[in-house]
């Protein structure tokens, strides 16, 4: 199809209609569970987009990114649950969670400024674990986080009297809680994508790219390394914190075990698989890696029907396929499924 303005408009309209109709199609076609999965996929997209700013744009390998998600989630949970009997409005709590995460992004960034590559990865990994362990143990001497039991009965996201968790099937058949969350998360994901794209093609984005390519040359070109690295950490963490708050409201329950190292690794995998540096690739990676394990669950059911017992545990199978997929990816598409123009050509350049 040629790229005439009419065709472009047509394909945008088609995309918009697909995105709007998707939850209903999933709900009536595959079942309600799939709408929840897509909701989670959108949350992971936000996380992946945030981490992409740190890793994909500025080239700072952060293995503790999930900590910012946890911060956002706990800020929401503590201020919107029976834990302290607080019920603050969403439009205060979500930005507050994002801001807290952003602040911690700067706090983490400051001591790591001189570190690069592997060393930075180790320190950020430690930071992620510190936050998780803190959350796990902050039930003594004063009970703040309720320890490993986590915080439950968190208020759903609500605007005025409209709660996103309540079904509104009387308004529209099929307008269930997950469907409403879908639209909210979709809107926020699109907003974050838009912000990320604008950042990428700006003076700030060029400065990040320059730091990623060559720190010394970037400094010699007038870029204040400290400020721009901290800015990347803060921006990434802010998006992570926002996603965390949404997660807490969506799930109604948070506990430290949702924020382990494996989650950080998964988000990094989404970026690498999708295409580091490219906003669309990153979202694609998040969608695939969230939906794929869920689809595999059906293999367990299938085995049960077929052989009367589960021969290969779907969870093991998942790891097996995962490992294979990563190896194949590195061989065939080292820059990701949908690489950014820049990263793609970096790899192409290395080969030629």
């Amino acid at each position, binding site marked *: 199809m040629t790229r005439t303005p009419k065709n472009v408009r047509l394909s945008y309209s088609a995309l918009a209609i697909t995105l709007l109709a998707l939850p209903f199609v999933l709900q009536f076609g595959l079942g309600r569970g799939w709408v929840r999965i897509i909701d989670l996929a959108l949350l992971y997209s936000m996380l992946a987009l945030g981490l992409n700013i740190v890793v994909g744009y500025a080239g700072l390998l952060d293995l503790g990114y999930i900590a910012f998600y946890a911060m956002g989630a706990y800020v929401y949970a503590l201020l919107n649950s029976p834990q302290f009997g607080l019920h603050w409005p969403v439009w205060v709590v979500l930005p507050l969670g994002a801001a807290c995460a952003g602040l911690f992004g700067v706090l983490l960034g400051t001591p790591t400024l001189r570190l690069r590559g592997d060393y930075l990865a180790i320190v950020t990994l430690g930071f992620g674990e510190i936050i998780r362990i803190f959350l796990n143990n902050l039930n003594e001497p004063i009970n703040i986080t309720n320890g490993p039991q986590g915080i439950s009965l968190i208020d759903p996201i609500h605007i005025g009297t409209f709660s996103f968790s309540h079904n509104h099937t009387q308004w529209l058949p099929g307008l269930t809680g997950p469907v409403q969350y879908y639209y909210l998360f979709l809107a926020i994901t699109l907003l974050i994508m838009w*912000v990320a794209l*604008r*950042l990428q093609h*700006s*003076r*700030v*984005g*060029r*400065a990040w*790219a*320059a730091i990623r*390519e*060559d720190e*010394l*040359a*970037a*400094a*010699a*070109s*007038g*870029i*204040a*390394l400290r400020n721009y690295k901290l*800015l990347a950490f803060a*921006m990434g963490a802010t998006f992570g914190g926002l996603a965390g708050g949404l997660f807490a409201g969506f799930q109604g329950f948070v506990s430290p075990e949702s924020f382990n190292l494996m989650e950080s690794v998964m988000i990094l995998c989404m970026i690498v698989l999708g295409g580091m540096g490219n906003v669309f690739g990153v979202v694609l990676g998040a969608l695939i890696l969230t939906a794929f394990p869920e689809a595999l669950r059906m293999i367990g059911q299938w085995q049960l029907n077929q052989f009367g017992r589960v021969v290969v545990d779907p969870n093991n199978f998942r790891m097996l396929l995962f490992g294979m997929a990563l190896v194949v990816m590195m061989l065939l598409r080292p820059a990701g499924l949908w690489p950014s123009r*820049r*990263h793609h*050509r*970096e790899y192409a*350049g290395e080969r*030629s």
Partner: protein
Amino acid sequence: MTELLKINQVSKSFGGVQALTNVSFSIQSGEIFGLIGPNGAGKTTLFNLITGVLPVSAGHITFNQCPLQNLPPHKILRLGIARTFQNIRLFSGMTALENVMVGMHSRTHAGILGAILRNAGTRREETHSKAQAHHLLTLVGISRHSNTLAANLPYGDQRRLEIARALASQPRLLALDEPAAGMNPSERDSLRELMHALHQEFNLTLLVIEHDVQFMMQLCHRMAVLDFGELVTVDTPDKVRHHPRVIQAWLGGDT
């Protein structure tokens, strides 16, 4: 002519290795100043001290009466000293145009809000940066490559692109570390012409490191000779050529 860069009793040691010992000279505004010496004489070390990549061990460097001690590289650039590197350091995954636009960083202002909102001021600055970058690429003669990745440029053009990126910060002093390294004689000639042109057009002061003595003799107004981290002499090319210790250092002969 006024004194632009003053290097006063500067020493640098790496652990027990004395790379530079009590080096003093000054560069006048508007001159083309050469820095020559055998391998390991401390030329690049001195460059790194001037541009803030390394801290000085002792002594003072002042630029335009402003002390450069403990300033990070980006602040020194802002004061007006831009540099290129001996082993080319371009942003290889970015296009030539983007490389030059990064060089403009210190002369532009758009921040995070401007980037997101893209208000009129930011858009204007962006348009201006792009036009200015094109102009600089034309000036160094590689405008046809503006959308080529830096990594894919021919070697000589990479050198030119590095110069364009340095010029983008509107420096008063341009420090070039072996700009002609690896070039054939005709490329060297055209590079020398470019350097003369830049010197004229921007009223630039140039500080150049080069091994090729012939190249330097034709280019520089004055030159400093370093040997084993010590300053041998500072003089005009003609006098330097006949300086006994220079002959000794280069030809190894007795004087």
